[in-house]
């Protein structure tokens, strides 16, 4: 049922667009971009809310990498509106940026984490959490 309705949707989109189906490609790109925005929302909230440097790095590294890759890939699909050499070259360039970010963002987070650990930046433990809770109760 769902597959049938999806193929009908694709057919309707293709006939509306003159039969070449680039509108479907653009819709896939828009969905990718919105997914990337959701991941970046999670990353931003994690960077504000988390209590510790390492947890913040966890939020920033993962959300940042995946959201950037999804958004750039979505833009590569959205801007592709014909099959000429220029637009293929543009798509390959954008995929090159995606590959570059896929390689470099985890590397830089790893280097920062290592630098922080060698600089004696201690991760938050359960005792710190208990202390902060006690302090909060005393204040109240």
């Amino acid at each position: 049922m769902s597959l049938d309705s999806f193929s009908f949707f694709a057919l309707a989109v293709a006939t509306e667009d003159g039969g070449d189906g680039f509108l479907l490609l653009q819709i896939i790109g828009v969905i990718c971009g919105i997914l990337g925005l959701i991941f970046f929302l999670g990353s931003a909230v994690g960077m504000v809310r988390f209590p510790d440097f390492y947890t913040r790095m966890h939020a920033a590294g993962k959300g940042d990498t995946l959201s950037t890759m999804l958004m750039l890939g979505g833009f590569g699909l959205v801007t592709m509106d014909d099959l000429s050499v220029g637009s293929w070259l543009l798509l390959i360039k954008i995929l090159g940026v995606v590959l570059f970010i896929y390689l470099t963002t985890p590397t830089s987070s790893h280097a920062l984490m290592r630098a922080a650990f060698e600089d004696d930046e201690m991760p938050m433990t359960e005792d710190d959490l208990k202390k902060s809770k006690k302090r909060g109760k005393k204040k109240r």
Partner: protein
Amino acid sequence: MIAEWFAIVMGTSLFVLMVPVIYRICIGPTGFDRILGVNVIGTKTAVLLVIIGTLYGRVEMFVDFALTYALLNFVAAIIVSRYLNRTISLKEMEAREKSKEGSKT
């Protein structure tokens, strides 16, 4: 048509979502938090450059800018992490090892 509206909406929401990261850069307790936020914002600026290229209709030019910006951002993060990395001398390391052994026995 779709591409322009998508670019406008995505650019605006990216700017709005950068505000919490800028807050973390301003109040970050350590320097590492700050450079982490700068790294995140730099990566997102590469996306914003592609969006601006879509709005101006010259994406093939702005993609090169985005690649350059991502490269500079990576190099900056690596250099700052090397700079903040506190290296200890060999004598200090030996002293630490001796104190560890002494505390064990």
